[in-house]
């Protein structure tokens, strides 16, 4: 038999001013199952809570209703009190008599009547309450970092240094990402590889980090703390254990005319190759698409020349299963291919290049060893035009957003050119210069003032070739919109930053959401910027949106700290407000009919197919749905959806909701 205690709070004057609290308490006392009812000035105060605790003990209460403010305000408070009193905290319900009664109605019979109704409703509910216990989910203290760019590297190192295991998966043969391609970095102009490569090596050598290069994530299942991930290790055709990285294979490889991705197509590489000299791991892989052995079935030079017999043409892709507790997604970005700017002649004119190509030209490790030369004839250009916003902030043709880094790297490019060729001329066509950030604007000013780069505010309308020169037509909107024409030797387009082509499929594999540009979506744009709305999956770097290195790195560290937070305890506790598919004794097992239509309804993919087997014969007796408490967030959509009420939501059961409605309306008659 239920023994419910009802505690009506005056909230000073806040409730008692408009609600006849004494009457509410008296009426509550009459309700069947109510063993004790009282009203008091401040229920949430210490003496108030003490009264509750005492009453629970003294009257052996089986549940309590506190008629006070909104549960969103003090539910936690009173549940703690209930616990102190010795009953399960979930046997405490609140009647919202302040926000939804006293503050919104004038003092009147009707107001008090409403208060009484609400209390009656909650008394009915609490009678149906059952003890609930927080759900404990064990946490696997290993993190998966997807992507080995600077963001991934930073996150991996932070987590590993905190003493947790990290598995890093990189799809390229080497980690390093875009940063490894950069020449110098703004605003300090320090050499990118000089600061990056030590970090790459650290990753490779860190005892807590397992590195899988030339690998991709196949599938992700499970839930926060317990993800099951399948990783495809693509066949490298080279035995990493035997290979010493001596390099004789790629020196001898006959296929030498393969455009080099690392040099943004400005040079060539062989079929068996390491992407760049400082690659980590610094061991080659065979690019089977361009290898004559795999395409034509002959050659085999590398196998012959390899001193240690590390070449293995029979090697096959391998799929490994790993279990991790958290995932950091750092899959990075891509740059928009400029083919959609025919009037700029990209692809048509050799000397119209994009920012990344310029980085390679300017890089000491690049195809020209750092001398800025024209791809067409190798001459040193005397005039370079830099076109900012090539695609960015251009709803009509490109993308509406600002790519954020172009203003800065364009300034950097112009500056580097001027440093290398003092009497060369550098022109920058721009819409606005966006240089917010520590020492950023100073940097751009330097380009203009010290290195006298010509900034022209206007768009480039057309670029064409005329006797060996590139004619750049545009307007200077500041010079009363005068059309101008520059005879340049080279044009650099600051092409827009876009999401990876495979971003969408990655997001779908991970069950995380993404925006219309396929950048991954954060859980909250302001307050949860590094988490996704799939618990346990974090975001780092430019896969979320265009970012420069400092931003990418700080977000990576933030993501890492979220992971460490998750790993700080052996199990995480979750609210027990979750859906449950009923189970019962044989012969029924459950009323669920296994139509599994609910699986589609669940926003969290928390509903799974379960086969109920005969313990002895192992034959399938029934197929039914099961809710994974680890994934369920307790929205209850499946509960209202289930035709024969086989699913119920703890804390908001069908029985409770219906009793509430009936208690509310069906007064004793």
């Amino acid at each position: 038999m239920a023994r419910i205690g009802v505690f009506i709070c005056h909230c000073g004057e806040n409730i008692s001013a408009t609600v006849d609290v004494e009457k509410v308490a008296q009426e509550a006392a009459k309700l069947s199952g109510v063993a004790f009812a009282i009203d008091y000035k401040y229920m949430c105060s210490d003496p108030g809570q003490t009264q509750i605790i005492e009453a629970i003990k003294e009257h052996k209460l089986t549940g309590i209703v506190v008629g006070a403010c909104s549960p969103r305000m003090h539910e936690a408070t009173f549940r703690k009190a209930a616990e102190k009193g010795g009953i399960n905290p979930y046997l405490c319900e609140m009647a919202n008599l302040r926000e939804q009664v006293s503050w919104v109605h004038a003092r009147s019979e009707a107001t008090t009547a409403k208060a009484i109704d609400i209390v009656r409703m909650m008394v009915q509910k609490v009678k149906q309450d059952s003890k609930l216990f927080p759900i404990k989910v064990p946490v696997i203290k290993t993190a998966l970092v997807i992507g080995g760019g600077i963001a991934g590297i930073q996150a991996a190192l932070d987590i590993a240094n905190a003493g947790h295991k990290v598995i890093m998966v990189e799809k390229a043969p080497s980690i390093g990402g875009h940063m490894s391609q950069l020449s110098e970095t703004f605003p300090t102009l320090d050499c990118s590889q000089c600061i990056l490569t030590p970090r790459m090596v650290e990753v490779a050598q860190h005892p807590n980090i397992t590195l899988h290069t030339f690998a991709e994530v196949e599938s992700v299942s499970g839930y926060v703390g317990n993800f099951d991930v399948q990783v495809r290790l693509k066949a490298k055709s080279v035995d990493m254990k035997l290979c010493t990285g001596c390099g004789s294979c790629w020196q001898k490889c006959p296929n030498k005319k393969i455009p080099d991705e690392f040099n943004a197509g400005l040079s060539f590489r062989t079929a068996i190759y390491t992407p760049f000299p400082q690659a980590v791991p610094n061991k080659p892989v065979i690019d089977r698409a361009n290898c004559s052995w795999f395409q034509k079935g002959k050659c085999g030079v590398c196998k012959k020349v390899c001193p240690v017999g590390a070449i293995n043409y029979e090697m096959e892709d391998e799929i490994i299963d790993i279990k991790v507790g958290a995932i950091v997604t750092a899959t990075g970005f891509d740059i928009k291919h400029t083919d959609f700017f025919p009037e700029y002649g990209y692809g048509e004119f050799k000397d119209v290049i994009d920012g990344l190509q310029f980085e390679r030209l300017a890089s000491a490790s690049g195809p020209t060893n750092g001398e800025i030369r024209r791809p067409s004839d190798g001459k040193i250009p005397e005039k370079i035009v830099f076109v900012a916003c090539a695609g960015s902030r251009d709803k009509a043709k490109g993308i509406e957003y600002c790519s954020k880094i172009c203003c800065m790297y364009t300034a950097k490019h112009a500056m580097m050119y001027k440093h290398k060729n003092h009497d060369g001329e550098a022109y920058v066509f721009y819409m606005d210069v966006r240089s917010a950030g520590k020492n950023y604007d100073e940097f751009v000013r330097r380009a203009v003032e010290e290195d006298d780069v010509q900034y022209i505010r206007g768009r480039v309308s057309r670029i064409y070739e005329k006797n060996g020169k590139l004619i750049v037509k545009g307007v200077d909107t500041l010079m009363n919109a005068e059309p101008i024409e520059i005879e340049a030797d080279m044009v650099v387009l600051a092409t827009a930053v876009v999401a990876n082509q495979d971003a969408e499929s990655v997001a779908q594999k991970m069950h995380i959401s993404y925006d219309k540009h396929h950048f991954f979506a954060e859980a909250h744009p302001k307050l949860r910027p590094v988490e996704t709305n799939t618990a346990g999956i974090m975001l780092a770097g430019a896969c979320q949106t265009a970012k420069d290195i400092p931003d990418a790195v700080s977000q990576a560290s933030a993501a890492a700290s979220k992971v460490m937070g998750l790993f700080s305890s052996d199990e995480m506790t979750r609210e027990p407000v979750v859906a449950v598919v009923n189970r019962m004794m044989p012969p029924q097992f459950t009323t669920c009919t296994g139509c599994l239509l609910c699986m589609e309804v669940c926003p969290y993919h928390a509903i799974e197919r379960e086969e109920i087997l005969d313990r002895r014969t192992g034959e399938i007796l029934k197929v039914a749905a099961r809710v994974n408490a680890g994934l369920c967030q307790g929205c209850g959509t499946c509960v209202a959806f289930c035709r024969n009420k086989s699913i119920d939501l703890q804390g908001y059961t069908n029985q409770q909701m219906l009793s509430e409605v009936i208690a509310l309306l069906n007064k004793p008659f």
Partner: protein
Amino acid sequence: MPDFEPKIVAFVCNWCTYAGADLAGTSRTKYAPNVRIVRFPCTGRIDFMLLMKAFENGADGVIISGCHPNDCHYTSGNFHARRRWITFRSLLDFIGFDIDRITFSWVSAAEGRKWAELVDEVTNTIRAKGPFTEISTLDSSKLKQLFYDEITK
């Protein structure tokens, strides 16, 4: 009837409308005391049978309210709810149930005023309509059976 005060039950979601109603309170926006709020985690949780039950047990009007599309705390509960209501509403209309007694709305956690106005508006409409007796009188009323060829004549 002049002194008829309608009983209105509101089924609302915890994250948007319930919070919105709280906001109406904290900003002291006054509205009609005829409404009784039942709190659900999400509009997706609201079972269409609860509407039936509310009316059977003497509700004169029902309000269903939750997060605006795309604002659902659980990302899609309200979208599923919306489909459910489109379906249920057309069924009720087909069996001749007075669907004007059910009001659907999106009220966000920031729309305390909208909530207050909604309640007042609904209260007035229902007050004008008078008490809901169509279901409560069903079992007592002497109904003779009608057969379906009749409707084809």
